[in-house]
Structure formats: structure tokens, C-alpha cells
């Protein structure tokens, strides 16, 4: 049986009119039961893979660390990771566009002679509320994927990462004479670049 909850949300004024110049992500490990203090973790690279079916998406955060502070993360490994994605405006303001909060599924640390990294992986369904259908009139690259099914074709588009909030799995998409449904949204984030790809399944 369905129950509906309704309210109105007044966004903070100003943000929508400002030019967005990039995306920013922050992550912290925290305890649901206050067993340990929050720990903000720096991000070397970040992957958010959101797929259509069930709970097969994942978030992977690669963090620079050291032999000295590696235990800071390890002792919090039973906690949750709160990952926030912000759009960044030309004057440096950050506007929250998505928060992802999941417990750690897998972890790994790699110790090198001069540096070390810690990788945290959260597996779940990261579906965001679907937007309306999208007409894709701008993309930086397009790649055709082979499909096992002759009746279905797949394309991957690399699109403007600043439009991250507008893409979600399940949304209908139209590009030229192709129309289909987004089956995967992948945000790939590093200290030097942000790449957003959308995989679209079309009937051929």
C-alpha cells in the first residue's frame, strides 16, 4: 500500500544563477553510534557507478595516506562513508547537489616506499530520483558498445560533468534519431579531471 508525503522546498537564492565551473567532492567516515570521531578523508580519485538493475552500483574512493595515519582509517572501517558532491561556482561557492551515505563494503591499502593509498568501496544501488526525459544535444564523445542482444544497442556518451545532477538511470534520452534509456551513469573524479559518462540502451 502506498503512502505519499509532500512538502515544498525553497532553495537558497542565488545559486541557480551563478556560473558552475566544476564539481567538488568531500568524504568522511563517521559512526552511526558515535563509537568514534568523524574522519574527513582526502580524495585522490573517485568513481561513482550507478546502474539500472538492483544493487550493483558502487562507489570507490582512493585516498592518499601514510604509514602514520593508515590506522586512523582502519579503526573506523566499520563506519559509514558520507560522500557529498558539490557544484562549484566561479566565485568559489559550493552548492550541494548529491549526498551518498553507505557503509564500507570492501577496503584495501597499498603501501609503497614513498607513498601509500587507501581504497574504500561501497556497493549498493545509488539510483537518484529520475528526472524527466533528456534531449542530448551536446556531448564530447560517443562510443558504440557491442551488445549480446541483436535487438538492443548501447552507446556511451561523455557529457559535461557539470550536468551531473540531471542524469539518472532510467531516464529516457533522445539524441538525433536515437532514443533510449540511460542504463549507467559513471562519474570519474581525480585531482586533475572530472569525467561523466552515460551509457544508453536503445532499441535498434
Amino acid at each position, binding site marked *: *500500500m502506498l503512502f505519499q508525503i509532500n512538502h515544498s522546498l*525553497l532553495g*537558497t537564492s542565488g545559486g541557480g544563477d551563478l556560473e558552475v565551473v566544476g564539481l567538488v567532492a568531500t568524504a568522511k567516515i563517521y559512526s552511526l553510534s558515535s563509537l568514534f570521531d568523524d574522519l574527513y578523508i582526502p580524495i585522490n580519485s573517485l568513481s561513482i557507478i550507478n546502474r539500472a538493475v538492483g544493487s550493483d552500483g558502487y562507489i570507490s574512493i582512493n585516498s592518499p595516506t601514510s604509514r602514520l595515519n593508515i590506522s586512523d582509517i582502519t579503526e573506523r572501517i566499520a563506519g559509514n562513508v558520507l560522500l557529498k558532491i558539490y557544484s562549484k561556482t566561479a566565485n568559489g561557492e559550493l552548492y550541494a547537489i548529491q549526498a551518498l551515505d553507505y557503509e564500507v563494503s570492501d577496503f584495501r591499502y597499498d603501501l609503497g616506499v614513498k607513498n601509500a593509498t587507501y581504497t574504500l568501496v561501497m556497493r549498493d544501488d545509488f539510483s537518484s530520483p529520475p528526472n524527466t526525459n533528456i534531449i542530448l544535444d551536446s556531448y564530447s564523445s560517443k562510443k558504440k558498445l557491442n551488445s549480446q542482444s541483436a535487438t538492443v544497442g548501447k552507446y556511451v556518451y561523455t557529457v559535461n560533468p557539470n550536468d551531473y545532477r540531471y542524469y539518472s538511470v532510467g531516464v529516457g534520452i533522445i539524441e538525433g534519431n536515437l532514443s533510449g534509456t540511460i542504463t549507467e551513469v559513471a562519474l570519474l573524479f581525480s585531482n586533475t579531471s572530472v569525467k561523466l559518462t552515460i551509457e544508453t540502451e536503445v532499441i535498434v
Partner: protein
Amino acid sequence: MAARNIDAYLSGGVTNTDPNASLGGGASAEKLYGQNPAYDAATISGVTLVDSANLSSVELSFTFAGTVLSIRKTTDVLPVIEVTVSVDGEYVLVSPDNSVELTVLVTNASLPVSSSMETITATNINHNLFDQVSSNNSKVGDINYRHFYIKNNLASDLSLKIIIEKQLNGLDYIEIGFENTTGGTQDTLIQDENTQPAGVSFSSPSDVLNATLLTVPAFAYIGVFIKRTVLALTDISTPNDTAILNIVEYQ
């Protein structure tokens, strides 16, 4: 589904009618409804519209032979789900794709003597549980809690799972949590809407595999806490910010 087995009530004490004071404690006598459904033009006698969810516009059909009601959206292609309504009471009508529900109160003696069909539309009952997110809340961020009870209307135990069928369409989001997983116990009244209920873990299950199994004895209540999170510097206004909970019954 046919007869309405469960109802949702505000909490905050039996006389509370204010959703903003629905913060746990005793159950209210005030039911929680999501929409106001209405006949577009003529009505079907004996069929009073009570509540709906995710309803924009549907055709409500009464079939005299068999005394059945059904609803369908004009875009539905699957066969309708017919519900026999020969006994007085509240019934839940479901669209063929299970995306829309309409609750009606049937008075059998007043039903038409021939088949008929009417269009039903609905308007959302705004702020039926949470209040408005102000611009300042959007600027600095805001976490609020609410609580409501689900009542088992059956004379037998009912097992339930609650999933978030549709997450809020704004940039905020809700999570649900439980102080008790077995009904019949009154939940704690939290101090105010900003106070996290002690011992309650929140999550946003979107399927039954990840949802908590709840057991509700006959005619008993079970409490549900809802957490609404608004991130700081949320910049997009959403006048109709709507979420849908699906309460899945196991008998």
C-alpha cells in the same frame, strides 16, 4: 489488495492534529493522507473518495455485474485489477501497473444499478508530515525528524516491510527507521524535530530485500520515524517535493 488492511496515523498524542508535532509518543486519532482525490464531474453513488497516492488522473469504473470497482490511467494497457465491493467498507484500488492507488469508502446499498465510469483527479496535501524547507534551511542545511504509526486493521498478525518507492524529487532526501520492529509498543516522544531518536538507525531501502521486517499484532500500531535531510547550499527550489512509501504486506 482489496480491503484497506492498514492505516497511517500521526503521533504526538490522541488529540494531536499537527503534523509538525508528530514526533512519537502516543498515536493520534488523525489519519495521515497524501492526496485529496475528487471526481472531475459526476460522481458514482455509494463510492466516496478517501485517499490516493501518485494519482494524477484515472478512470474509476464500476461494473454492475459482480459489483466490482477498478481504476486505470488512460495510458495503461494491462488488464485492470478488479476489486469486489459488495460489502460496505474501505477498499484500495490499484492501477494495472501498481503505480497508483485510490482508497474509496463503499456503501453497497447506494451503488448504481448500472455500470458507470468517471474521471478522478487528485491534489497533493502539502506539508502532510514535514513542513516547508525554508530558503535559510536550504542555505545552512537541515535535518528534521517526524514519526507516524501504522495500524493493522486485521484481527490477525500482519508482517510488513516499508520501502521508499519514490524518493523525494527535490535535492533533499528521506530515510526511515524503527524504534521497535514488533508492534504494540509506544515509541519515544522526541524532544523536537531536530532531535535524533535514540537507538534508531536510518536507511532508505528501495526494495524489500533491504527492508526491515516488521510484525504487527492484530489491531496494534507500529511506529515509523522519518529523517529528512537537506544539504547545505541546496540551490534548486522544488515546490512539489514528494516521496512515496510502499508498505508491503505479508499475511
